[in-house]
C-alpha cells in the first residue's frame, strides 16, 4: 500500500477508486434526470437532488485552467516529490476538478495546457486520478 494519504472508501466513491486502481481510468457520474456531469463522487445530484446517478468512463483528457507549484508545507511523504503541481482542470466532459499534474519539467506547465491521465501502469502510484501533459 502506498504511504500517501488515501481517500476513505465509501459506497459512493468505490466505482471511481476501482476504475482508477484497476484500470487507470477516470470514472465520473452523470445524473440520469438532469444530465449534469459530476465530480467529486456524490450520492445525490447536487443540481436536481436526484439519486439516479450513473457511472461512465470519462475521456481522461482536459485543459489546465490554473495551477500552483507547491514547494513547501507539504506533508513529509510528498516532500521528496516537490514541487507538486496542483491544477484546476476543465475536463473534456465539461466538469471542473482539482488534480495533480506530474511531469519531469514542472516549470513548463502553463494555464491552457492540454492534459491527460498518466499511463495506466503508473496509476497505482497515485491515490486519485492524476494527469500529465498531453
Amino acid at each position, binding site marked *: 500500500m502506498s504511504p*500517501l*494519504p*488515501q*481517500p*476513505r472508501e465509501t459506497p459512493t*466513491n468505490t466505482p471511481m477508486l476501482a476504475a482508477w486502481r484497476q484500470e487507470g481510468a477516470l470514472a465520473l457520474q452523470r445524473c440520469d434526470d438532469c444530465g449534469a456531469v459530476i465530480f*467529486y463522487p456524490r450520492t445525490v445530484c*447536487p*443540481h436536481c437532488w436526484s439519486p439516479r446517478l450513473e457511472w461512465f468512463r470519462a475521456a481522461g483528457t482536459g485543459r489546465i*485552467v*490554473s*495551477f*500552483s*507549484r*507547491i*514547494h*513547501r*508545507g*507539504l*506533508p513529509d*511523504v*510528498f516532500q521528496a*516529490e516537490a*514541487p*507538486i503541481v*496542483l*491544477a*484546476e482542470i476543465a475536463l473534456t466532459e465539461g466538469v*471542473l*476538478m*482539482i*488534480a*495533480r499534474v506530474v511531469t519531469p519539467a514542472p516549470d513548463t506547465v502553463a*494555464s491552457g495546457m492540454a492534459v491527460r491521465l498518466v499511463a495506466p501502469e503508473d496509476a497505482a502510484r*497515485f*491515490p*486519485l486520478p*492524476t494527469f500529465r501533459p498531453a
Partner: protein
Amino acid sequence: MLPSNIGIIGYGSSVYEKQATRTELGYFADAARAALMSADVRKNEVDGISVSSTTLQPDNAVTTAESFALSVRWAGVSNAGGAGALVNVLDAVLAVATARARYVLCLAGAAQDSGFFRDRISRFTGSIADYLAPHGFGGTNGLFGIIQRKHMETFGTTRAQLGRIAVDQRANARMNEAALLRGPMSLNDYLHAPIVADPLGLFDCVMPCAGAEAILVGPLDRVPPGKGVRVLAGRERHNHPVGEVSPLRGGWELFRDELFAEASHEPDAMDFVQAYDDYPIMVAIQLEDLSFCPKGEIGRFLEGHHMTWDGSFPLNTGGGQLSCGQTGGGGGMIGLTEAVRQLRGEGGARQVPGAKRGLVSGYGMVAYGHGLSASALVLETA
C-alpha cells in the same frame, strides 16, 4: 433593519502564541475577561453565548457555558469557518432584540500551532480529506495559489501589487505589540521570500497560532457615548458561486448593494476596512466584491493607496492575521475586535484619526477548492 439601541458594548483579545500553552478555554477566558471589563458588565449578567472555533469540537457553545459556569438563555455556534464569527455577532444582536438574551458573549479562537494545523487541514472537510489531501495539496496554500494565478492571468494583477497588502499590514503590526510578526518588511522582502505554492510566497501565507477574541453584545445605553458600536447592517452568503472550484469571487458581490443601502452609507464613507486576510489575494477579491473597486482592477487600486493605519485606505489596522497569526475561528473575529477598538478611539499608536465608521468582512469554510462562506458587517460608533 437592525435595532439602533443594541450593539457591541465590549471587546477583548487574548495573547497570540505560536505554540499553544493552554486549551481553547484558556484563551477564551482571557478574551472574555477583557471584553466584560471593557463594558463594565459582570460575568453573571451574561445570559447568551456563541462560539466560533475550528478546534473546539466535540465541544460547543453550550459546553463552553458549562466550563465558564454561565447559565444562558441563548447559545449559538458557527458553521461558517472564518466567516462565522461575524454571523454569530449579527445573530447575537437579533437575539438581544427579540429578548432571547440581554448580554451575549461571542467567542472565537483556537488552541493550535503550525504542525497541528498542517495535520488538521488535511481533514478540514470531507471533500478535502478524500479528494485533495491524497494529491499532496499542501494545505490551503495550493488552492489559493491556483486562485491567485487565475486572477493574475485574467486581470494582469501582479505579485508586487498584491504584496502591498502584506507590506502595509506589517507596518500596522509594528504599532501593535500583540502581533506575533512585527519585524520590518519591505516590498523587496515580500517579493524575494521563499516560494511556498507558486505564485504564493512565504509572506502570502497566514501563520496558524493560538489565541482568541471576544465580543460582548447588549444594550448600547449600558456603556458611555463613544464606547458602543452599532451594527448598521450585516449579511452572509454561503456556497456561491455554485459549481465553481477556484472562483474569483466569493458571494460578497451578491449582498454588497443591500448591505450598503441598509447601512445608508457608500463604500467611500468607511473610515477603514478589516478584511479576512488568510491570503492577500482573498483580501483583494473581497475588496473587489464589496465594490471598493471594480472587479479585476484591484492591482491599480492597491498601487493608488496606502493601506497603513494613517494611509488613504486603512486596512487591517492591527496587522491582521497575516501579521498577528491565525487563531483558527478567531481569525474571523480579529478584524471585528480591531474595528471596535478603532471605533472606541482605543487604537493607541495605530488609531485611525477620527474613525467613526468601518466595514469588517469574513471568509471561510474551505472545502473543495475554495472557501464557501462570506460575511460582512458595517459598523458605526454609537
